[in-house]
């Protein structure tokens, strides 16, 4: 028995020595900086940076001068960490999230036929463009849900893809994969979106979907900031002008426009600080503030839309948010 023990132990020793030598002799030289960068990158290999995986991006940072803020998926923390390792200033771009521009679920929009086949949007469009009556409608067959590396996409009970902005990192994979091309990236702060992509005439849209854009132009008229325009039977928001006031959301007759956490908080004037200068009255786009000169002004709860222009301009910082639901730091410009 002892012979067997010694033989096996000896073999083990020889093998481990061999492995150790091989590990040293055949070791691949890796720049320690690349390894350090790999450790701070999210490691999800989503490809949003344009490189095939986090390791490649790490190498590209060191060897090819890839942009430090290239990793969108990791968020602010990652950009800061990468910048620190690279020894440069961090430039934090705005966070963008993906939005599915369709809300016509099974209950609200019609189908052309009953589809039977592969449960995947990209395969389903082969069969006469998918079963939705509207050619731009979300098919809800989970292609985006499957490709999202961050589990940010869910198909609602109604059969529509919905993206969770908390989990979404703006990597853009779903945007590329959607065969209907109805997912877009929007700055996370711009919480208002028109959830429709149909450029068909309003009468056609009505036949196919109860919540589509019918090009009635109500939102165009109602927007105090001229942020909405019509492009071929579809309302489009110019996010450069949009102040996330939410007036369009309330007025849209088909409820095609949605806002995250809408209705938005109203504002109120703090009596002890207001000097009655009247600047807020002048800037308010919906005439929601009243008051005599040199007297405390008042905000009409009904008319206020929460655009926060008055908060921006009040010289005495006498205006604050009314509802306690969201902290001011979240919404302050």
């Amino acid at each position, binding site marked *: 028995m002892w012979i067997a023990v010694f033989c096996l132990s000896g073999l083990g020793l020889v093998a481990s020595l061999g492995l150790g030598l091989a590990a040293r002799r055949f070791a691949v030289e890796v720049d320690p900086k690349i390894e350090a960068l790999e450790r701070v990158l999210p490691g999800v290999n989503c490809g949003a940076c344009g490189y095939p995986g986090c390791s490649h991006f790490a190498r590209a940072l060191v060897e090819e001068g890839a942009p430090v803020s290239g990793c969108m998926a990791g968020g602010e923390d990652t950009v800061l960490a990468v910048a620190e390792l690279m020894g440069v200033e961090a430039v934090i771009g705005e966070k963008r999230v993906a939005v599915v521009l369709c809300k016509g679920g099974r209950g609200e929009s019609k189908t052309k036929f009953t589809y*039977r*086949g592969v449960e995947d949007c990209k395969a389903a469009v*082969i*069969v*006469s463009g998918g079963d939705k009556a509207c050619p731009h409608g979300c098919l809800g067959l989970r292609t985006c849900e499957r490709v999202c590396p961050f589990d940010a996409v869910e198909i609602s009970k109604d059969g529509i893809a919905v993206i969770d902005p908390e989990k979404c990192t703006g990597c853009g994979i779903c945007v590329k994969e959607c065969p209907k091309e109805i997912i877009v990236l929007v700055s996370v702060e711009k919480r208002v979106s028109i959830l429709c992509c149909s450029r068909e005439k309003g009468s056609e849209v009505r036949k196919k979907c109860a919540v589509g854009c019918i090009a009635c132009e109500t939102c165009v008229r109602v927007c105090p900031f001229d942020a909405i325009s019509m492009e071929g039977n579809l309302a489009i928001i110019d996010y450069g002008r949009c102040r996330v006031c939410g007036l369009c959301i309330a007025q849209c007759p088909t409820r095609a426009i949605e806002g995250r956490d809408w209705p938005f908080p109203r504002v109120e004037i703090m009596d002890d600080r207001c000097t009655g200068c009247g600047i807020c009255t002048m800037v308010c786009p919906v005439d929601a503030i009243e008051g005599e000169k040199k007297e405390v002004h008042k905000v009409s709860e009904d008319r206020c839309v929460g655009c926060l222009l008055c908060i921006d301009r009040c010289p005495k910082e006498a205006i604050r948010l009314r509802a306690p639901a969201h902290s001011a730091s979240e919404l302050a410009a």
Partner: protein
Amino acid sequence: MEDRQFILSSSPHIHSGESTPRIMYSVAAALAPAIATGVYLFGLRALWVVILSVAAGLATEAGAQRVMGREVTISDGSALVTGILLALNLPPTVPWWVVIVGSAIAIVIGKQIYGGLGYNPFNPALVARVILLISFPVQMTTWLKPSPLFSRAVDAVTTATPLGAMKTHLMVKGSLEGFTMGELWNPFIGNIGGCIGETSVIALLIGAGFLLYRGYITWHIPVTFIGTVFVLSGLFWAINPDQYITPLFHVVTGGLVLGAFYMATDMVTSPLTDRGMMLFGMGCGAITIVIRLFGGYPEGVSYSILLMNAATPLIDRYFKPKTFGWRTVSSG
């Protein structure tokens, strides 16, 4: 006409009617003659082994799938077939707990951990049989002398399988001299010691004929498997008939017919193409002979099939059929 919505799918819009359950239940039916013969030869205890194996397999699969959060698919017949095949590969004296453990191993380790039906690289029944053989060698090699069902002796008599007897004789005597293999008629109808399903060649062939007719198995694997065994054993027998027994003996004894027609031909674990299957069969035959003639075990079919199962992905990779039109020169 307005509200009626049609169904749309990709072509084709008709189907042959074949289905996975249909194939599985057909294989189970094809094994009925072997089960019946086994029960006739070894008594009701053999039937008990089959029933226990199937029941344990179905229960284990349902349980495993539920635990793994998968759809429960025991009605597709694959666990039934695995249960029957395992039972047929066990000796009739095997204790009930060995049967249950084996069946559970076949389903869980042989199939479910890989993802379920279609994903396993090894034949589940053989995985279980080999694990049992290594773990419980005594219980797995205690054979019964067949005693036809309605003329039962009071006590069951243990015996050796023909292959086992031959190997022992060789080891003890150093040559085959004096070894009587008996009438070759016996293994043909099953009147020898062995596993429940492997002894009766004719019962197995009847079932295999049915499967061949239906197209669920093709001739490629069985013919090359058995053919290679015959040729290689014949070669050694021609060189030295004193040490090596006639190829006919090798073909009808042991688990060769059961293995070649029912185990090696398992669709999931065998190659996809006809030519690949032939190489697979030849490999199985060669390894079987090596183990039988030169290895420590008397029987090598189970191991040879498992080893070739491991080679199946490689075989599939190198045996791609040549796409239509690969030759740019016309041969008209």
